[in-house]
């Protein structure tokens, strides 16, 4: 299916980080490299998931791992998402550092019991006696009529659950640094990727480095409007900003990189300057991460706002399959531009 092509087309024609001499690799390659490096450095790390050793290697992110680290540390699994999550939890309690990879977040809904009732609570519920160092990964699907059960962006559900980290890097550099932090962390981490960015390249150092949780980054400096863009929406926001620049509208783009914990300060500081905030998410609007970001920012910095916060997200409906409806379902550059124009009115 032409998913991959579809998204390559959309690769932005610009650098997302400062130009450096560092080699450029794709997001998927960065993840793959990180796995190789981390697994070599720590024998307690293992990786499992449906298809991690198959010809597609989970979009390439797991390629070569089983050959290198063997079938005990890299293995395909049965289709038993809830039990496998529990199995990951139990192995984490007994000294391992599991990375459990899912093709799509939709399947995490089968594992909510183990994620929410178990993984997120074990450390607290037992007074800190045993923690759960566990990374759960999934890649948001999009397009080509994948429809309601194969293209959900349900990360917002995890925003509400105490005891979880929620990590959503948008570029290869962050993907590597945050994956390292996630694996090193002693707690359950939900690590959400997006199909639309897995093939995008950016400069990624070969050495291992860690990006702290709760540290957003300014992807683009500006003074008129602050855009908080999540995951793939960073790409759309940058495109919108470039267009708006021509109209002398100057956008600041913040990529929070992790939603839980959330870098409230970086957003607040930007809003102090711009007085205007638009939050662009890849999921549904109502009750989404955008609601929490809006609420907390208003709590902390209401006086800085010159206009109400806007949310650019998908409408509150299941993903439709027909491309004509998909087009409208997924907000992008144009919706962002429209929101900017409204907010500066």
């Amino acid at each position, binding site marked *: *299916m*032409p998913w991959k092509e579809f998204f390559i087309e959309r690769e932005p024609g610009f650098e997302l980080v400062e130009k450096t001499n560092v080699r450029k690799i794709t997001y998927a390659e960065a993840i793959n490299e990180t796995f190789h490096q981390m697994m070599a450095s720590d024998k307690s790390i293992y990786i499992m998931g*449906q*298809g991690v050793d*198959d*010809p*597609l290697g989970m979009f390439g992110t797991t390629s070569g791992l089983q050959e290198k680290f063997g079938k005990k540390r890299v*293995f*395909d*699994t*049965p*289709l*038993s*998402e*809830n*039990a496998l999550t529990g199995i990951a939890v139990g192995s984490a309690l007994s000294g391992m550092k599991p990375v459990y990879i899912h093709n799509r977040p*939709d*399947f995490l809904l*089968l594992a909510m019991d183990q994620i929410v009732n178990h993984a997120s609570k074990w450390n607290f519920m037992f007074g800190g006696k045993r923690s759960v160092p566990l990374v759960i990964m999934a890649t948001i699907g999009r397009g*080509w*009529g*994948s*429809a*309601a*059960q*194969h293209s959900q962006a349900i990360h917002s559900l995890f925003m509400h659950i105490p005891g979880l980290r929620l990590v959503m890097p948008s570029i290869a550099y962050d993907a590597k640094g945050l994956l390292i932090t996630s694996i090193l962390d002693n707690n359950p981490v939900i690590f959400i990727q997006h199909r639309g960015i897995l093939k995008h390249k950016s400069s990624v150092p070969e050495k291992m480095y860690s990006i702290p949780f709760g540290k957003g980054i300014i992807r683009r400096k500006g003074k008129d409007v602050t855009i908080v863009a999540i995951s793939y929406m960073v790409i759309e926001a940058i495109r919108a900003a470039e267009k708006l620049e021509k109209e002398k509208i100057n956008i600041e783009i913040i990529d929070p990189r992790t939603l839980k914990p959330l870098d409230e300060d970086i957003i607040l500081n930007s809003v102090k300057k711009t007085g205007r905030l638009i939050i662009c998410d890849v999921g549904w609007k109502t009750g989404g991460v955008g609601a929490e970001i809006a609420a907390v920012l208003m709590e902390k910095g209401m006086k800085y706002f010159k206009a109400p916060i806007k949310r650019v997200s998908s*409408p*509150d*409906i*299941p993903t*439709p*399959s*027909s*491309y*004509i*409806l998909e*087009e*409208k*379902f997924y907000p992008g550059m144009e919706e962002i531009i429209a929101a900017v124009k409204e907010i500066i009115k």
Partner: protein
Amino acid sequence: MYTNKKISPKILLKLYTIIFKIRKVQLKIEELYPKDEMKTPVHLCIGQEAVAAGVCINLKKKDYVFSNHRGHGHYIAKGGNLKSMISELYCKETGCSKGRGGSMHLIDTSVGLLGSSAIVGGGIPVATGAALSSYIKNDNKVTVVFFGDGASEEGTLYESLNFAKLKNLPIIFVCENNLYSVYTYIAKRQYGKDIYLKAKGFGIPSFSVDGINVFDVYSKAKEAIERARKKQGPTFLEFKVARWRDHAGTGDHYKNEYRNIKEHEEHLKKCPLEKLQNSLIKLKLLNSNKIKEISKKLDLEIESAFAYAQKGPLPDKNELTKHLFSE
């Protein structure tokens, strides 16, 4: 030669026509898919046609069928409207799901197809619920649910088996064991190859059946459906089949990387359509003229369905949020 004296010539020819139709529709999709006009993932069931046909022919129109992501065959075998199905693949408003579902979400309530879930194992409890309706209402309907070997790893199957047996529900659990889940061989996911044994532990009559041999499929399904109709409870049928194509899309691009090629070649020799055709020729129910006649008729029907689909209207953008709720 496959045969079974208890099956009437009329039914044998009907089975042949249905299997032929499913095959032809699949091949047509495969032929046109590269044009990128059917913008929805397709999961072809080439090689597995005898299961859908042999099971559904025993059902009444009012009986319920639930399907999964690989649902074209089930839809056709239960008598679903072909134009609506192809239109759904073309993402049209005229599709059976009005362009909201795509290939993985086929429905035709006029023939008891109440939908298909693309969550592996997800349709099993839903189907069990339809059987519960029949039990409560005493409406004498039978429900069939189709799922793959992969679905037998999901807990919902066992929860559903337990409930179906507990309430003695009129449901047939049909597992199409094609040995693969995407590119993963069954031995990497389960111990042993016999899934029906797991259902047996729940006290449910459970059988392993050659899913290439439509005579066997037909007979076992008939028994099971009759039992269900007589309020004698659920049955589990495991059909051993082979997936001839890639998991999704067309062809079998990665076959050298994920398949046991030798085993696969053996499977490719056992074509359910060919086997049945040869048997019917030997039984003098078919000859080359008759075959051509059936083939032509099917081609016409299929071509007209594709033409209908291609020229059908797309959904109205302004109706994006329609159907979120039912009034």
